């Protein structure tokens, strides 16, 4: 039962992260699909992959993208 | 530890040397000595290695490991599990020997030219070139399709590094476009590999072919066609066939000339390696051959016609190089042993001739610091010997006897007529004529027309090493043109095994 909730969280989190205007929020929201996929890996009987994905997908990748946003610009430009 | 361990050394030695070169900074002499020694050793190793296979970790198939096979239940020995390869396997036969040798030779010339044309050679640039060579050698040798994917990603990163290091205007934008596309094509290639893994239970190509032939899996099911489409998409990206021909030619034009020579060798050999794997896995399906021939014809036409309208000579060369890849694809797609041999021979010739052209035209950049054909002219009187060498390179690309491309294009046209498709022969001849015309136009605008007044020619002499590299490549072209049996004998065993 819980895995269906996780799957819906993943897809909704991905769509919401891409719809943000503020890039820092988008970077942090990338962590939500990452950690949900880590839980799904544990449910799918692969515990060591779940550990790696939990670290990389929820801590390393959002922090890299947030650092880039801090060094460039904070908001998305208005499309022409 | 037998002599077959030398097969692994072909990949490990460039990587180890590259890691050392990356650490050295500001020690010019050490960088030069280490780079030259590695560049000399890399082409020599394939000539010394005996033919055979190398199993990483010693994991031979159970059928060959008598001590372990004794106590096993008949559940394992009775079925085909006995013959499967449980580890990563590299295969080394005469065709791989020739191709790894030519790749090593081009690496040697690129490193030799680089060390003598720049005053302070950078260790990081040599690191990128050696990592690229190691990756493409591994792609040629490996029989394990996931290993090919890992080295494909490493090669993409190395190519991006070579573009970024060149200092030409707008190279960062091209590098970003290239790696964005690469990060789309890479996971899709992995998806295709994983679909094949799910259907057959193996990542080793020999075992997958065995599973298809024995009928355990239906080879015409739509799932396998989807895997073919995804793997073909990754193949198109790595080799520069349409729809990636514009980004590939931009990549060639934004790198320094010796880097561009090496990059196009990477593209040609990746096309050959992954193309052979696609033929081995999917050739019972006639759709594969038609698709490969179709995309190659489109590549030839688009590449060579777009070369005519360019004004930057590096872009002209880039589009011509992409167009010539189409000939190789036609050879592979024809499906007969003679056609595949012709295609592989054309690949070897193509790598040599295009490196020759890039290094040759690189001398123009060295003397004038510009690559816009509207501003150039009259370079013939600056250095007539180099101009003659570049002219011979262009004639070689168009297929003039007695140089090597004539032999391989003749074999390709014969193979096309033998397979009942003479229209392909006509298209190939027409496009060779257009190639020659484009090259002569570029040669005339750079070398032969009168020098415009604003052009300033720098006073530095072209280094002797560049001229030596050009003469050596010309000698190789002439030898392969007069004695094509040197190459075709090595390639025939591979081609015969594919049909």
């Amino acid at each position, binding site marked *: 039962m819980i895995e*269906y909730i996780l799957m819906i969280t993943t897809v909704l989190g991905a769509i919401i992260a891409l719809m943000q205007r503020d890039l820092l929020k988008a*970077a942090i929201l990338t962590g939500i699909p990452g950690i949900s996929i880590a839980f799904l890996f544990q449910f*799918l*009987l692969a515990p060591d*992959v779940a550990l790696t994905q939990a670290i990389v997908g929820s801590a390393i990748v959002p922090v*890299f993208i947030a650092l880039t946003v801090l060094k*460039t610009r904070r908001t998305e430009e208005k499309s022409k | 530890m037998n002599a077959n361990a030398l097969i692994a050394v072909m990949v490990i030695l460039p990587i180890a040397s590259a890691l050392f070169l990356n650490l050295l900074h500001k020690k010019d002499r050490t960088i030069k000595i280490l780079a030259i020694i590695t560049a000399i050793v890399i082409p020599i190793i394939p000539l010394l290695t005996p033919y055979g296979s190398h199993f990483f970790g010693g994991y031979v198939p159970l059928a060959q490991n008598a001590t372990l096979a004794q106590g096993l239940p008949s559940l394992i020995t009775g079925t085909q599990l006995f013959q499967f390869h449980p580890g990563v396997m590299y295969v080394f036969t005469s065709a791989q020997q020739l191709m790894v040798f030519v790749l090593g030779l081009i690496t040697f010339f690129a490193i030799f030219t680089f060390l003598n044309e720049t005053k302070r050679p950078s260790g990081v640039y040599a690191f990128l070139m050696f990592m690229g060579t190691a990756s493409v050698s591994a792609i040629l040798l490996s029989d394990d399709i996931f290993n090919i994917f890992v080295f494909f990603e490493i090669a993409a990163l190395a190519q991006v590094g070579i573009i970024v290091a060149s200092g030409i205007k707008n190279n*960062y*934008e091209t590098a970003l476009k290239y790696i*964005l596309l690469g990060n789309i094509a890479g996971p899709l290639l992995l998806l295709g590999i994983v679909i094949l893994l799910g259907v057959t239970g193996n990542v080793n190509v020999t075992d997958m072919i065995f599973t298809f032939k024995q009928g355990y899996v239906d080879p015409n099911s739509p799932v396998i066609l989807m895997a073919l489409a995804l793997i073909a998409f990754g193949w198109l990206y790595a080799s520069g066939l349409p729809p990636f021909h514009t980004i590939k030619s931009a990549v060639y034009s934004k790198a320094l000339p010796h880097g561009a020579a090496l990059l196009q060798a990477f593209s040609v050999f990746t096309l050959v390696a992954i193309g052979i794997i696609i033929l081995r896995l999917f050739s019972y399906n006639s759709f594969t051959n038609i698709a490969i021939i179709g995309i190659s014809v489109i590549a030839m036409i688009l590449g060579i016609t777009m070369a005519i309208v360019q004004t930057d000579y590096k872009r002209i060369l880039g589009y011509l190089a992409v167009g010539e890849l189409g000939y190789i694809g036609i050879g592979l797609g024809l499906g007969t042993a003679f056609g595949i041999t012709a295609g592989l021979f054309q690949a070897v010739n193509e790598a040599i001739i295009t490196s020759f052209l890039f290094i040759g035209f690189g001398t123009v950049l060295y003397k004038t610091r510009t690559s816009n054909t509207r501003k150039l002219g009259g370079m013939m009187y600056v250095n007539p010997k180099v101009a003659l060498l570049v002219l011979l390179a262009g004639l070689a690309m168009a297929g003039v006897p007695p140089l090597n491309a004539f032999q391989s294009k003749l074999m390709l046209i014969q193979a096309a007529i033998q397979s009942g498709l003479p229209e392909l022969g006509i298209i190939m001849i027409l496009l060779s004529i257009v190639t020659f015309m484009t090259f002569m136009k570029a040669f005339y605008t750079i070398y032969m027309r009168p020098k415009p007044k604003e052009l300033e020619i720098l006073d530095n002499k072209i280094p002797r090493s560049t001229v030596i590299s050009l003469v050596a490549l010309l000698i190789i072209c002439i030898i392969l043109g007069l004695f094509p049996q040197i190459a075709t004998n090595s390639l025939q065993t591979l081609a015969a095994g594919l049909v």
Partner: protein
Amino acid sequence: MVVDSQLMSFFTAGSLVVIGIFAALFLDNLIKKIIGLAFLADGVNLFIITMGYKPGGIVYIFLPDMVVSNFAQTASYPLPFALVLTNIVIGASTLAVILGLVIILNKRHGSLSASKILRDKGE
């Protein structure tokens, strides 16, 4: 077909792949393209692990008190997890390289819009 968690997991992986490709090709901002690439890699990894899943099975760790044939029949498939571990690391490293290039391009052009930066200037 039976609607169970493995099938829904395949659908999740597929939708992540589609969202990732859409973001990488059609969105204008460079940072969002890169987030899309991260989702594409995540989708492919989820697909691989789902393929190796055996409903009602056990984890593929062989403890000392197990019977070999029982283990071989009920454990989930261990080969895909090696592919996924390698792929996660490859994805993180390529992401670092792309982000470095984006920072340098932003300093030169002053914007993060892909249509301004990646427009081919015809040379």
